């Protein structure tokens, strides 16, 4: 049974890429570090297998031969200092042999100096924010797996649970330094192919780095329990050639400017409601639920609530600045003025909340600007 399984593992390790849906071993990954770690992993794995074979070998041999039913008589020895010394020292030596490459790899991993690009990665319940330091590029990355797929009402797509709206985009062949932190609870930013995993600690910054040689799409997940939607907090990294990356960067800066100007335009109620619903689904529904009913005693309802039907400025304030000490985040930086206006309008008019209130993007933009000062 066990032997068969080990055999499986062994045969699988020889064909690590064979079948994506049947992967048994660790991913070898694409960076230098991930290769070192993979090799280290295989080394210790084989050492462990060897030890297991020897120990269990002797044991099963005596189980087979030294059984009473085969007439074995018990021998009366119960001490041997020499043997004891040997089997204390031998493992010790093996451990030292493992510790050397482990130390070397670790030292390599701990050197974030001389980076070409600094990116601040911030964990939020339950999304990531990427800020390109010194580049004025700053966006959020949300999961886009539809709830129908999660609830088995629609067939699951290929990258089920591992897909986001705005992937992190980085240039290939450049050393990227990540400054990882969080605003609420502890998250952990993990991309297996880079062998980068670092906890995001609120109030502190952890450094990590990577240098990806090949362009490609790499997927990962949050790996520290961070509340309800911990399992739905994917990471997608889009590695592009440096030229493509520069192009993307320029686009992003453009988009920022467009957003600024569109914030000044008035929008129709229909447009706001339509946009608002989309924003609501991606940013609010995780807690307040699609039907706006929330979860009793955990997340407040919006449908018919005082917040969404009462004083409008309080409502805006709550959405923009959040409520400290609760899961309600400050969305001021997370969403554009248009999105904010839309979602607040939506919340005030969806379900049974027929307040008829309409929030203009310009008004929100003003508040956002005021807060910046």
């Amino acid at each position: 049974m066990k032997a068969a399984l080990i055999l499986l593992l062994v045969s699988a390790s020889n064909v690590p890429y064979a079948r994506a849906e049947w992967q048994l071993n660790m991913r070898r990954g694409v960076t230098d570090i991930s290769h070192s770690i993979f090799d280290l992993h295989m080394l210790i794995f084989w050492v462990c297998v060897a030890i297991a074979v020897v120990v269990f070998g002797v044991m099963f041999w005596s189980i087979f031969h030294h059984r009473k039913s085969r007439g074995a008589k018990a021998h009366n020895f119960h001490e041997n200092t020499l043997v004891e010394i040997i089997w204390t020292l031998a493992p010790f030596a093996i451990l030292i042999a493992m510790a050397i490459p482990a130390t070397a790899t670790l030292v390599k991993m701990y050197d974030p100096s001389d980076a070409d690009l600094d990116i601040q990665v911030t964990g939020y319940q339950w999304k990531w924010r990427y800020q390109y330091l010194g580049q004025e590029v700053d966006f959020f990355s949300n999961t886009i797996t539809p709830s129908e797929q999660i609830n088995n009402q629609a067939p699951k797509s290929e990258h089920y649970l591992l897909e986001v709206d705005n992937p992190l985009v980085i240039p290939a062949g450049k050393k990227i330094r990540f400054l990882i932190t969080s605003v609420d609870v502890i998250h952990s930013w993990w991309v297996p192919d880079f062998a980068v995993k670092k906890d995001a600690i609120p109030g502190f910054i952890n450094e990590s780095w990577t240098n990806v040689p090949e362009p490609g799409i790499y997927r990962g997940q949050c790996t520290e329990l961070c509340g309800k939607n911990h399992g739905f907090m994917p990471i997608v990294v889009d590695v592009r050639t440096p030229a493509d990356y520069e192009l993307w960067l320029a686009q992003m800066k453009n988009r920022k400017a467009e957003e600024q100007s569109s914030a000044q335009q008035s929008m129709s109620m229909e447009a706001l409601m339509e946009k608002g619903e989309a924003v609501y689904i991606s940013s609010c529904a995780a807690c307040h639920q699609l039907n706006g009913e929330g979860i009793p005693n955990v997340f407040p309802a919006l449908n018919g609530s005082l917040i969404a039907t009462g004083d409008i400025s309080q409502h805006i304030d709550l959405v923009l600045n959040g409520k400290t000490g609760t899961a309600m985040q400050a969305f001021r930086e997370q969403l554009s003025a248009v999105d904010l206006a839309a979602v607040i309008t939506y919340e005030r008019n969806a379900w049974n909340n027929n307040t008829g209130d309409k929030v203009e993007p310009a008004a929100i933009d003003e508040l956002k600007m005021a807060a910046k000062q």
Partner: protein
Amino acid sequence: MSHETYYVPAQSRWPILASIALFLLAYGAGTLINGLKTETGNIGLVLVLSGTLMMALILFGWFRHIINESMEGKFSPQADLSFRWGMSWFIFSEIMFFIAFFGALFYVRTLAVPWLGGEGEKGVSNMLWEGFVAEWPLLTTPDMQQFPGAKAVIDPWHLPLINTAILISSSFTITLAHHALKAERRTAIVLWQGLTILLGITFLSLQVIEYAEAYQELGLTLHSGVYGATFFMLTGFHGLHVTMGTLMLIITWLRVLKGHFTPDNHFGFEAVAWYWHFVDVVWVGLFLFVYVF
């Protein structure tokens, strides 16, 4: 080790009653404390009070029961040794409890606060707290809105120094009382132990004065960042232990008055004395690491 027949007590109702009392206490405390935020649950208070009362009665009855057994000579020297081991390991567990808080203190002082202030391996963290400068005692916290730091900290060379002197002398007086007990000098025991109790009470009163000053004048509160947190947790739990110790001293003192102890059978007294030395030693650690350095 001698092996007389070991005293195995018969069935007892105390333990399960004590478990119920503890449950009431804990459940009540939970309800009460949660009620602080949601303004419900005065039942919590009722439960806590009844749990405390029940526990006090049980402890009183249970200990009286044991004292009676002891007076009847049921406990062999071997049983006496069991009590000694019991008390020693209990004190060890208490030490470990304090180590958790001392550990927290050392960690924030030597690692967390410097990191937040931009020093050391995780100094980049200072990006999130612009303008924050690490210092200890921590008067300016990273976020002064959420955790307003204290204006000043307690001067170690006034009340704390006096308190150190008081507590150290009380360790001597309890030892003198012990010697007197062994030499069967009754008046001396009563006096020395009485003095120890007085010293304990004085210590506690001075702590109260110090806390009042901290809260009212220095703005040093549980809320004033991690300095206040470690300060009050360490001194607070120490104070709680001194209170317990003082109560225990008072009870043994009453027993001394009743003539419960003989020169060679007075473990109840010794246990309290050990405990008293323990709170004393913890205080010395506190004085050094919380107040002075």
